[in-house]
């Protein structure tokens, strides 16, 4: 039922619950006059208390499990996990950069770059293949969304020529 690493979830849950309650106090302070009996923080506060209680239960459960363990988890495994997470971190990073630059640089430039980066992350390293897939997929998506569904995708620099 419980796992040895549930204490991490427990600690995060308690911190999240406390954060919600603290933020709720600030929101309550903004109310000047209201006929609403529950108030804007009633449900979030209730959820915060539930989250804190579950956090405590999870820490207790993890403590029970860790006590029952004869050996502590292998540290080498954790190091392996960090190496494994590289692809996840890179994927998130290129995605965030894509979202932040999309408006300024434009969909037609950023999307093939994103696709190429993602393909690179998952070990597709043949340049010609990466370019071919990235450009084709971008063209398909742009056609479907911009022409088929009439979605206004950001053109960025290309606005002058295509806008």
């Amino acid at each position, binding site marked *: *039922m*419980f*796992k*040895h*690493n549930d204490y*991490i*979830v427990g600690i995060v*849950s308690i911190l999240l619950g406390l954060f*919600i309650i603290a*933020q709720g106090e600030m*929101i309550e302070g*903004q*109310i000047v006059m*209201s*006929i*609403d009996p*529950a108030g*804007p923080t*009633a*449900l*979030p506060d209730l*959820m915060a208390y*539930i*989250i804190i209680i*579950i*956090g405590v239960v*999870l820490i207790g459960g993890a403590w029970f*499990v860790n006590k*029952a363990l004869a050996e502590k988890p292998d540290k080498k495994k954790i190091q392996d*996990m960090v190496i494994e*997470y*590289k*692809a996840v971190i890179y994927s*998130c990073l290129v*995605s*965030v950069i*894509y*979202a*932040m630059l*999309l*408006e300024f640089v434009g*969909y037609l430039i950023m*999307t093939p770059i*994103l*696709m190429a980066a*993602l*393909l690179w*992350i*998952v*070990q*597709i390293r043949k340049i010609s293949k990466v370019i071919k*897939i*990235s450009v084709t*997929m*971008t063209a398909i*998506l742009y056609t479907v*969304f911009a022409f088929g*569904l009439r*979605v206004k995708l*950001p053109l960025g620099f290309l606005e002058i020529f295509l806008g």
Partner: protein
Amino acid sequence: MLEGLLIGVENVFDFSSLAAIALGVLWGIIGGMIPGINATIAMALLLPFTWGMEPVNAILLLAGVYCGGEYGGSIPAILIGTPGTTAAAATTIDGYELHKQGKTGIALGTSLISSSFGGFLSALVLMFVAIPLASVALKFGPSEYFALAIAGLTLICSLGGRNVFKGLLAGAIGIFVATIGYDPMNGIPRYTFGSLHLADGFEMIALMMGLFAVSELLSQAQELSGDAEFNIVGEVDTRLPGWNVIKTFLPTSFFSSLMGVVIGAMPGVGASTACWVAYSETKRWSKDGDTFGKGNIKGVAAPEAANNAVTGGALVPLLALGIPGSNSTAIMLGALMIHNVQPGPLLFTRQPEIPYSIFISLLVANIFMLIMGYFIVKLAIKVTKISKPILFASIMTLVFTGSFAYSGETFSILVTIGFGLLGYLMKKFTIPYTATVLGFVLGFIMEANLRRALLISKGNWTEALFNSGISTTLIILAVLAFVGTTYQNLKKPVDIDTSVKA
């Protein structure tokens, strides 16, 4: 009524009307398949084209889109673990699992047959009980809606698997996330940190695509980066289900369809809620409830029947009372008004060709959906033949494009990434993110209606919660289900999982 139905048949079985329905269904399925485009958007995109059409044909076209759109969302839910529409979220749980087990044809076929069945049944129900059902739906006030949301939330207890607390934690997080944004009663911004992007809260589409699609893609990235030949799905069986399989889920489809019709008839509660309620109730009453989430076809049949049955139900308040109960029916109302048609009780006597043509068109649309869906499914299965790294990069890009398309803001992409990462971490710690989605979907309904009920009862909680027989029954059932599921989970022998990789 018979006379009206004959007028409907005459109107629908005309080449231009049949063509309008067929085009609508096809457009709806395609729209539903694209993440970020739901039935409402697909209908809205067609609205300008209906101006020059005959009123009946215009409505039939939109009715076709409505049916097709609700079904289309299940195809990506099964094939890539990304619900094309929010109504297909529950389908992802067992549908994608079946696909990973290589039972792709079974999953897609079940979804198609169950969707058509649900839509067809709802059209029949709509035909005979539109006006009585509308009066039942009107009995639902804030207390009843709140109780309905609570009943739907009891599914959270079983989503956590062996650890009921993790299900509850994920659900509570979902409900909290639903409260972010302007307070519906006082207009005070809550937990927005001054960001205007968060003023209206998180977009459901962005949240779902993050939790379902991006979290799965991040898991795949981790695997694919280590071994380019890694294949998440082994041999794929593309055969559609035969009668021996169909008969096992037909009763589920039937009861889920009835739930979908009733939920659809309630203004403000749509297919996104119906799919979860049907999934939850089917799991609760099934003898093989333990296999839900592990690739049970009833887990595909139930939400798909329910979300398509909503189409008929949602038309009840629109046609019988002139009240649009959902975004999609609001667009239909717009289309009707463009053509000087005023829905309501008088519509059945003044312009009977409109409501009766809609009834018949829904029956025809669901038959078309079954035929078109068969060919689309055959084509869609080809997605499984694409190399996994290419599929990974393509889906990620499609998800981000869909996310942007829905809101027109790059902030939505950031939200999708954020929830994707959250979903990935939740998976690592065996926290069911599906419970977060459920909490988020029902959180809106729960909060708004609880506070309305409290306002009406002047702060009296007992009066707010147990306002009527309906709300009392629903709350008692929810409490019993909650206690029962929690007790069953706690009763199971304690096991100690020492694995580092969750």
